[in-house]
């Protein structure tokens, strides 16, 4: 997983009119890595991915993708990148097989028929090969979209929210597939809103308002955030939550089913704050594990503060 960098860019910026959508963005993605791309809606994930594959021209920035210059050699990059768009973007009125054949032709592939059959088999699409893409359910569409972007054997996959609206089983299958591809040496950059998916990535980056806030392996990000979390169970959660929320040292109180997650950036301050409640009868306190979500929500509120 170490060694050559597949994506190495820095200083990337892109504005649409007055809006700075991507601001001074840089990442390094090593070969064979599954790199998760997270951030709230409108944070610039799709835009960043489009910058990387040459669909948008950055206002500023430089770097390489697969060893080619991201500004001047986009044609070469396009040959070796598979890009799966956020919105389904294949032809509804073509069948699965025809769509793949079409994509094959766009990449000017030789022995197209064999490649198509091979890809259909790999993704278990053989039985439905004649079905029109427009009539597929969401999960199958995603599978077809993945098929169409791995068919030309790219070295880098850019997947933009590939599993939005897909059932858990299909998502799991999808991610198993992604791991298999990564084992084969593909590098994968994937954007998602699902925390469980983020946890299946080797590394993640979190962006908000076009700024890269943190990046690194999931464990490191959680540990590095320094956030401590306790969970408490008991009656009358609503009033308890509002009481806890006002304490200094408590940054966030979130309801999770029957329990509340109470977290704070400073572990010692948090413990002092909740000490009186720990001896209150009827409440059970356990030390909780800080989730990636807690970290992100924390980062988000910080980012909002910075903006304001």
């Amino acid at each position, binding site marked *: 997983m170490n060694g050559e960098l597949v994506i190495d860019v820095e200083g990337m910026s892109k504005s649409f009119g007055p809006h700075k959508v991507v601001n001074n963005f840089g990442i390094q993605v090593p070969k064979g890595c599954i790199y998760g791309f997270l951030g709230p809606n409108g944070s610039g994930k799709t835009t960043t991915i489009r910058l990387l*594959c040459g*669909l*948008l021209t950055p206002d500023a920035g430089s770097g390489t993708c697969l060893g080619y210059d991201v500004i001047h050699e986009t044609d070469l990059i*396009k040959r070796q990148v598979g890009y799966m*768009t956020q919105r389904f*973007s294949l032809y509804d009125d073509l069948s699965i097989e025809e769509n793949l054949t079409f994509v094959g032709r*766009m*990449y000017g592939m030789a022995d197209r028929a064999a490649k198509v059959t091979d890809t259909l088999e790999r993704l278990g699409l053989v039985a439905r090969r004649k079905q029109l893409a427009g009539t597929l359910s969401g999960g199958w569409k995603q599978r077809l979209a993945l098929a169409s972007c791995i068919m030309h054997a790219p070295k880098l996959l850019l997947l933009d929210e590939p599993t939005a609206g897909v059932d858990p089983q299909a998502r799991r299958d999808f991610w198993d597939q992604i791991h298999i591809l990564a084992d084969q040496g593909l590098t994968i950059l994937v954007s998602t809103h699902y925390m469980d998916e983020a946890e299946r990535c080797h590394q993640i980056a979190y962006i908000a308002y076009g700024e890269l806030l943190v990046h690194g392996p999931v464990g490191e990000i959680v540990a590095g955030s320094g956030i401590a979390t306790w969970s408490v169970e008991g009656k009358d959660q609503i009033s308890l939550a509002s009481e806890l929320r006002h304490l200094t040292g408590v940054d966030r109180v979130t309801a999770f089913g029957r329990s509340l997650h109470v977290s704070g950036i400073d572990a010692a301050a948090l413990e002092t704050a909740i000490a009186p409640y720990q001896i209150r009868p009827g409440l059970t306190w356990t030390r909780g594990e800080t989730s990636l979500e807690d970290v992100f929500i924390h980062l988000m509120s910080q980012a909002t503060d910075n903006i304001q």
Partner: protein
Amino acid sequence: MRRDRLTFAMMVGVPVMQLLLFGFAINADPRGLPVAVMSADQSEFSRSFVAALENSEYFRIANYPETEVEADRLLRVGAVQFVINIPEDFSRELMRGARPSLLVEVDATDPAAASNALATLQVLGNRALNHDLDGPLQDLRATPPPFELVVHRRYNEEGITQYNIVPGLMGVVLTMTMVIMTSLAVTRETERGTMESLLATPVTPLEVMIGKIVPYILVGYVQVALILIAAKFIFGVPMEGSLLLLSLVLIVFVAANLAVGFTFSTLAGNQLQAMQMAFFFFLPSLLLSGFMFPFRGMPLWAQWLGEVFPLTHFLRVVRGILLKGNGVADIAAETGYMALFLIVASTLAMLRYRRTLD
């Protein structure tokens, strides 16, 4: 609709523009028709006859051909609408009171274009000659006119309008379907989101354009085949020239229209706009090309405008080949123009076609 400014602008602007354009441009009574005069008689009479032609608004002397062959060629390529033959002994016969004949050959492919002018010709001749017939010759001024006008309608002897309309329709149908189909082709990709995938692949703009255009060329040929069959068996349109030549010219014409459609599709934001642009192109093509109204009936500026549209040139070629039996040399100039149009439109399309999403 408020959001879609371009659509709105086109909905208001286009009708106004077209109203002005066509209101001024269209005139079903053509004037200034080009005439070739072949005069073998250098007399006072023939000179004043020619002068009278010049002075009438209906005619414009474009050429004095030396030989029959040359006169024939001028008529065939459509450089002139009439050839007027003044025979050698015209004035002598005239003075003898023998009512010599004046031979007028008319390009009658479009019967409407020439009918008024022909009617004037007789009147004009009488007046001009009567003026000269004074003194002792006054007696010859009598009604029946001093000469006999022999009109020879070439290419469409019976003046059947269908002969002119049906081949023209081929051009019109092709323009309409080809421009609309391609202008929707790329816009549809953008609207459906498939453009994003397409742009992410390494295909070049030229490849996309060829990919979009070639299938429609085939569609165009199917249409042409149907129209030709109908023309022959239902309307009995003569087919003088080579159909092979026609089909070669068709490639250029169809491709030119497709390139226009492709250009529109790179300019339009959505299918509605593409459709509007296609109509914006189609209407003037139809009205200014000489299909609906005689081309020479329009004021000069409108004729210049009309020359821009490939349909104008195609009409000349298709009528030339089918009705006049034009060969390669006769249609080369018009075809060359269509090719030029094709090149310009494709270049524009290539420049406009964006390889990125921004």
